[in-house]
């Protein structure tokens, strides 16, 4: 059985397999979101054509004629299954429709807001590793030491704090008490610092521990001792053999953390009134702007799949076992 698995995996290049899996993930999220939104639109009580007409021309100028025309145009008189196929077909062509609130095309709205979120996500992520790498490394190199124990305590506390609370604490401290930084909104690059720091602290709580444990595990591996028996001094042994091995669990965890990044920016953007995708998603949800909700959800899903793909590729590059064997 084991042998069969190995052989079947060797026939498919690991690179192609990884890309196929993540592509399937992206398509699956898009399909589920589209179906969810379709079901929602058709599950609402009342006449769908009437609602669309009201949204387009306004309640006061609504006539039976317009409603009937929209019913024909939008195919609302056809069977549900045909409408569903049409709905998915339009999505497959990349047509996300117009926002019900601003009337602008969903795609252009997404393109505008996505920049802010990408900036925030990237800044928060980089900042988190600026904090976590030195802390995690020094804790891992001296397990049980002062850095290890302190960082563990702070990590447990931070991991138990919802991100909006971290944000509120930072606002109270840096914006309201010290008045160093602007509390909310987005006009200058300084406006990004507090949201990014909020995100980074939540991320670093976990990554400090993951980095610390990866370093401890690698250092206690026998091949590290044997490298010293071979004649390398401890520092050289860690540089040559330890860093790469420790990097694999850390990179794998980075992808897992993307889930936290996305939760994080949805909540943090709302808190800081920051014009990114998360803020857009919550506003659309509260306004029941279905095309906007679907578009935002799909973009976030794609970002998640892409982040996973990058982490997979990084692991593939780091780990010859995956490259040559395909088995994990």
């Amino acid at each position, binding site marked *: 059985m084991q042998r069969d698995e190995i052989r079947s995996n060797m026939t498919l290049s690991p690179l192609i397999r990884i890309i196929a899996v993540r592509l399937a993930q992206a398509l699956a999220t898009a399909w589920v979101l589209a179906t*969810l939104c379709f079901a929602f639109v058709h599950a609402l009580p009342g006449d769908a054509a009437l609602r669309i007409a009201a949204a387009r021309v306004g309640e006061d100028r609504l006539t039976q004629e317009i409603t009937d025309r929209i019913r024909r145009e939008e195919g609302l008189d056809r069977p549900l299954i045909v409408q569903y196929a049409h709905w998915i077909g339009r999505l497959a062509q990349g047509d996300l429709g117009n926002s019900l609130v601003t009337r602008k095309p969903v795609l252009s709205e997404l393109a505008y807001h996505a920049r802010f979120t990408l900036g925030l996500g990237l800044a928060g992520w980089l900042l988190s590793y600026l904090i976590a790498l030195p802390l995690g490394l020094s804790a891992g190199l001296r397990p049980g030491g002062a850095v290890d124990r302190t960082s563990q305590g702070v990590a*447990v506390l931070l991991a138990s704090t919802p991100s909006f609370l971290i944000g509120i604490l930072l606002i109270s401290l840096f914006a309201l008490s010290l008045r160093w930084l602007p509390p909310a909104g987005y006009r200058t690059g300084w406006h990004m610092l507090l949201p990014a720091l909020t995100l980074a602290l939540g991320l670093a709580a976990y990554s400090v521990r993951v980095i610390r444990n990866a370093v401890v595990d690698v250092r206690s591996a026998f091949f590290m001792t044997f490298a010293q028996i071979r004649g390398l001094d401890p520092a050289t042994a860690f540089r040559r053999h330890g860093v790469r091995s420790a990097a694999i669990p850390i990179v794998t965890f980075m992808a*897992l953390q993307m*889930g936290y990044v*996305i939760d994080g920016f*949805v909540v943090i953007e709302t808190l800081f009134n920051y014009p990114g995708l998360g803020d857009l998603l919550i506003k659309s949800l*509260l306004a029941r702007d279905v095309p906007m*909700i679907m578009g935002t959800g799909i973009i976030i*899903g794609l970002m998640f799949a892409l982040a996973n793909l990058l982490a997979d590729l990084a692991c593939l590059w780091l780990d010859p076992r995956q490259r040559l064997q395909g088995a994990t």
Partner: protein
Amino acid sequence: MSAIATLGISNNAAPLGLRVGIALIAVLALLCLIGPWLPLADPNAQDLLRTLAAPSLAHPLGTDHLGRSILSRTVHGAPRSLGIAVICVAIATSVGLLLGLVAAAGNRWTDGLIMRLADLVLAFPGLLLALLLAGLMGGGIIPMMIGIKLTLWPQFARMARATARVTLQEAHVEAARLAGLSQLHILRHHLLPPVLRQTISLATLGVGAAILSISSLGFLGLGLQPPTPEWGAMISELLPYVAEAPVQMAAPCLMIVTSVLGFTLLGEGLTAQLVGSDT
């Protein structure tokens, strides 16, 4: 958040964490049980003449922007946040375990179907699916619970399946089968003990994650609807007045951190003791 992750507390800190965690959860459980019977003000009674009042004898933690007693609202919020979290995790755990065991014992098609379903849910990052469901269905307790359970079960199913598949290969299961012991006997005495051992710490961490999710949804306005006293929603309501009413703000904040901390410490401690920290 919704993806349950362990911090991997070191082994020498775990026993202390375990004791502190149990103590915190015991205090919170007591609060949940006796809180509603304490002689406190009505959590929804407004007093527009005394808004954002400083702590006094009548309102020991002060009042909010509508003059409601913060102490009363905080105490009444406990059974909601904790109760919903525990119920969500209990249901998600049972469903996940059941599906995971069926997948492990079933044929290729059952296994494939259940695991692809889990993959589908896990393809959504963090709270996104719960957020969309709660948002589209208009907030409130039921959509929120459905959303949280939906995002939690795949982790339990995956874990149960992985443990069960390893256990089913072990010699004691083969010996039991050769002896003709019933499937039910094998399930109860050979399969469930190791699976539950793995589950208990994951479920405890899951309760902490669920409390975070509930308060986040409440904060975003997509969870429990006003005027229900819920910690996340209370924080969101008090946010504009944070400078004038720091004490009022601190009460629900501390409750969230304390309860998540309790379950995190307990879960991490159990992981270190039962599963071993080699994760």
